[in-house]
């Protein structure tokens, strides 16, 4: 799908997806990930129960769904951090459902964590450098000889510097990552994943807790990833962002995929609105009748007595 470059990067890149039906488990023309019958149970709870899933290559796919729908668990399964009760999936046509997590990442499928995992006692810069793959200095037999990896290290540092500027973390470069604020950790988590230079990047609520202004500027970066030919799969509860950058949306609820389609189509789906978006979601809460609230409060207080 590399040949297909959109001229206007801000427009959703429907291209190949234009013919794909808006239905759960829809077949895509050029899927990078294909999964079948993936299920994971915790005690009596079926957290993930996905019949068929395909992620199109080279586009931005959003995975949305209510809390506890199984999105993170699906991420865990796909990337080898958790073992499924059943199911198989492929990445680039190769089965990876029994492959350990680090090998999945090496093949180019990298994920971030919803509850951030920064390496507290390493500096922000070291966190970034760690992300880079194929470092010669990471092999023990080369490690003692600085001249072998010096050059590569310099390149990595340059790349990290660029990313840090973009994520507004450059001022914190030499600080311990453990001293970052909640939002900064999210940012570092994402920036570090980008250092891996992955083919498919899976972001688990990357923008939760990120300042809106910064969020906006980062969306441009995510889009440019797509334009470089990378695939992005992200979980997000911010519908503005989903609407703005995703080309395709998959909706999960209670472990299953319940809807799929273009952002506009999915968000118009009444079931999605009911279960996920809520009636108010496009209204200004300050417009809600204050009197109504007050009334409600009154009745509740009365009920309580």
């Amino acid at each position, binding site marked *: 799908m590399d040949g297909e470059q959109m001229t206007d990067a801000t427009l959703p890149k429907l291209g190949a997806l234009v013919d794909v039906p808006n239905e759960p488990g829809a077949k895509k023309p050029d899927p990078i990930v294909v999964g079948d019958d993936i299920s994971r149970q*915790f005690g009596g709870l079926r957290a993930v129960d996905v019949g068929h899933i395909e992620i199109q290559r080279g586009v931005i796919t959003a995975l*949305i*769904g*209510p*809390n*506890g*729908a199984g*999105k*993170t*668990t699906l991420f865990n399964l796909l990337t080898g951090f958790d073992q499924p009760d059943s199911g198989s999936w492929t990445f680039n046509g190769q089965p990876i459902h029994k492959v350990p997590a680090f090998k999945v990442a090496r093949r180019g499928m990298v994920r971030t964590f*919803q*509850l951030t995992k920064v390496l507290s006692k390493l500096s922000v810069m070291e966190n970034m450098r760690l992300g880079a793959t194929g470092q010669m200095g990471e092999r023990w037999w080369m490690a003692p000889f600085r001249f072998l990896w010096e050059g590569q290290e310099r390149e990595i540092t340059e790349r990290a510097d660029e990313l840090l500027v973009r994520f*507004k973390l450059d001022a*914190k470069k030499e600080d311990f990552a453990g*001293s*970052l*604020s*909640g*939002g*900064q950790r999210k*940012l570092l988590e994402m920036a570090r994943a980008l250092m891996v230079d992955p083919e498919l990047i899976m972001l688990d*609520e990357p923008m*939760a*807790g*990120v*300042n*809106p*202004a*910064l*969020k*906006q*500027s980062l*969306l441009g970066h995510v889009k440019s990833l797509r334009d470089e030919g990378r695939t992005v799969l992200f979980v997000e*509860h*911010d*519908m*503005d*962002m989903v*609407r*703005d950058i995703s080309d395709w949306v998959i909706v999960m609820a209670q472990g299953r995929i319940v809807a799929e389609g273009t952002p506009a189509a999915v968000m118009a789906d009444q079931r999605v609105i009911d*279960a*996920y*978006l*809520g009636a*108010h*979601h*496009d209204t*200004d*809460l*300050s417009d*809600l009748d204050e009197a109504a*609230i*007050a009334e*409600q*409060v009154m009745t*509740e*207080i009365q009920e*309580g007595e």
Partner: protein
Amino acid sequence: MSDTDSIRAAHQTAAEGAVLRADNVIAGYLPGVNILNGADLYCLRGELVGIIGPNGAGKSTLLKAMFGLVKVHEGSVTLDGVDVTNQRADQLVSQGIGFVPQSNNVFPSLTIEENLEMGCYQDPKRFTERFDFVTDLFPTLGERRKQRAGSLSGGERQMVAMGRALMMNPSVLLLDEPSAGLSPVMQDEVFVQTRKINKAGVSVVMVEQNARRCLQICDRGYVLDQGRSAYTGSGRDLAGDPKVIELYLGTLGATG
């Protein structure tokens, strides 16, 4: 300089009689590195105050400083006119302040029920009554009451954290990004409920990155940057201020 001084003076006059106020707070985690550089904030009785600002501005630090979890080097925190600077958190709780931290806000090895129980630790008798209220709000929590919080999804945890705060009966509630990680419908629910609680007489100070929503419901907002309050005003004013939009709110979704 005189400009900021006069603003501060005006702020201080307005703060008279506030239920919770922080004056010129200087605080930090490590010796020699101050995160808050003279932050001011007040919250009148029954008011809902929102704080927004860039990442790393010191919003969480300000809440923690007011709640006695970060040491205040200079300045003062007063509750109902009484100086409570650097008081132990549990003492503040018994004086009626409730706090929901931004991260690590559940007890992972306790079940949901036990987590909520901890919410009314100082007043266990109210448990059943409040528990019903919270599970009404977040039905998932009721269904999974025996599940350990450590195995919950991100959003479910957030519900537990919020629920724990709702178990208390505080007169002042400090919320650090209560909506983060929640689905849109739940986010709205949290905002509406916060407003409701507030209407019922609880003063609320809330930090949010869902800035637009936050400014929509709050009576007054602060924009915190680099450890001090950069702008204050009513929610609507701030949401409309082009400077604030450019620097802190962005345009995404503004027109949608």
